[in-house]
């Protein structure tokens, strides 16, 4: 019983499922192509390739996105730098001796005022200075 079961199992595993064989014998059976180590290795390589392609696509899109962002920042930084240079030049020109002299010569400092307004002098109230020894200092808790 056991041997017939073994034979059946063997046939199931090793023998090809040929129908109506002309010769009956225990021929060595060709292995299924999916069972070949080369196939398995190829399948592994294909998986690795697929994963690599996927990683490449993801990383490439990330790099491109990052590069675009950096280029955008780069352009903005450039704009700020050029603005800064322009403003600095304007500030330097505005406060230069040359510019100040030019502006001052345009103003007539010796021109008499058209109208003089006379106002009453304000008499300030006398300031009472308390001598420090007469000032009573209230002690504050904590000091």
């Amino acid at each position, binding site marked *: 019983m056991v041997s017939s079961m073994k034979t059946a199992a063997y046939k199931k595993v090793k023998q090809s499922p040929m129908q109506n064989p002309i010769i009956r014998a225990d021929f060595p059976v060709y292995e299924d192509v999916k069972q070949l180590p080369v196939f398995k290795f190829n399948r592994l390589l294909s998986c690795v390739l697929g994963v690599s392609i996927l990683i490449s696509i993801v990383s490439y899109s990330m790099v491109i996105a990052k590069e675009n962002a*950096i280029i955008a920042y780069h352009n903005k930084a450039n704009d700020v*730098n050029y603005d800064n*240079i322009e403003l600095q*030049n304007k500030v*330097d020109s505005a406060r230069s*001796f*040359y510019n100040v002299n030019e502006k001052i010569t345009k103003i007539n400092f010796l021109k008499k005022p058209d109208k003089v307004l006379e106002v009453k002098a304000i008499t300030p109230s006398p300031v009472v200075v308390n001598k420090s020894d007469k000032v009573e200092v209230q002690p504050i808790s904590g000091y």
Partner: protein
Amino acid sequence: MIFLFNINPKKYSFFAIVLQCFFLFFAIVLILQLVRLQIFDHGELKEKASQMRQPLRSFTFRGEITDRNGIRLASDATLYDIYAHPKYYTKDNPPEKMAILLSPILRQPSDVILEKLNKLDASTITLAKGMDRDTITKIKKLQLRGLDLVKKSERVYPQGNLASHILGYVNTDANLFAGVERTGSKDLEELPKVQPVEYDGKGDVIYDFNTDPIYAALPLTGKRLVLTIDTTIQHVAETELSRMMSKTKAERGTVIVMNPRNGEIYGFAVLPSYNPNKYNKAKPSIIKNWVLSDVYPPGSTFKILTVASGLETGSITEDEKIFDSGEVKIDKWTITNYDYAKRGAPGLIDLRHLFMHSSNVGSLKVSLSIPSYEHYKMLRLFGIGSETGIDLPGESAGIIPPPKTWDKVKHATIGFGYSIASTPMQIASAVAAIANNGIWVTPHVIKYNKEESLKRLKTRRVLSPQTAVTMTRLLSDSIQYSDAKAGKIPDFRVAGKSGTSRKPNPHGAGYLPGQVFTSFVGYFPAYDPQVLIMVVVDNPKGVEIWGSTVAGPIFNNVAIETARILDLKLDAPGLNHKNKEN
């Protein structure tokens, strides 16, 4: 496979062979193509690739120029030139439409722009030059194809006319430079050594692992050039000189303010000046730094060198007494003191009197007492007849005849600053040598570090320290005991000398009638000199036109302000408090 495609083994074998052949053929084609690309077309493809990538930044800034306190005197601004390329025009934006759109932005009539744009045979059309960034931003928004916006840098001088002859100008199109823009050009164009960044054809950065984003966004600027000039002293010198020149209607003038200890020039006013921002509108005669290129007879200021040479060679002593007859006749030539008509013959004079009254007769006698060759050697040591080596272009060596050609008249007149010609800078650096304990130093306007100073600046001993101290004493006493106000500044002792010399005729022999150079050279504090000031005014007009009345007041006012700006320690508190010139 047989099972998969259900083909018989024979067919399978055939199919496999065909497939293998196909792959083999494909592989051979690939290999041949690679060989062609890598070996045969290598050069051409490499050139194409280099055109698509920009290995270095094509747009860089020239370095800034600042004064000794960091105040910017020159920097770069960004401007754009706009060009059109007819072959890239599109049907959506024909020239007519482009002209209408660009007209308000470029502030040009649309028909003028259209006329330019319609030159369809031209490959490049210049539409506008030197446009600012606002204009360019507006044009970019229009998204017009066929327009090229080329960025360029332009030199800006925020201080206007200030120190124009020192700064010079830049014309990169014609490769023309003047002033320190020329002498310091190598430094100003030297870019920092950093990791190179590559750019694509559009000008965007090609990032890799080594690219530093911070650096990539920074404008690439040349080395900063720091000058020895103090803007405030420069301004004071130019203002005081300008005021006196307006008052006396003088042609030209200069004020040199320097540190006699190390040759650093604090201020170098040269008038008339020009605005380096608009250098192309100035006359070449104004752009030229005449103080370095033109020579003049130094006149009485040269007596300092004559007496110093006499003392150094041992031809005279400090206590020398010279008989001044007020007038002498040498080989048919009569030489008189400037005040001979008024004062006559002073008689026996000492060296202090010689300087106080600017005795021509006394000076010529000192000059004649020095052997010609020794006198010549001393003057050469003082730098007369050779370029000072200042770091500005266009310097003249001056004129000093060789000693074998010296006759008695020439030797005598050299004593009071005639028969020779020098630049104001030569006289300033020669007198600075006396102030610097007898050591001559190359005057300079660019601030150098220790290593560069050793390489670029020359020093040489001209006088012994004893002679230098004696000269300082004589010059200081002559100022202090003189009736003139020139050189008398509050709280300081000044060692100096005024000079007035006739202006040579540039078109022939002799002198121009009624035209003079007035000058004053002095240093202070006399016994610890920190500042030397040289003033020369060319052809002032008026009644009292002397070195002491024209150049002297400029010296005094510039000296007072310089002492205040540099916060000099007073060497004689309370001295000369009634002598400030207005």
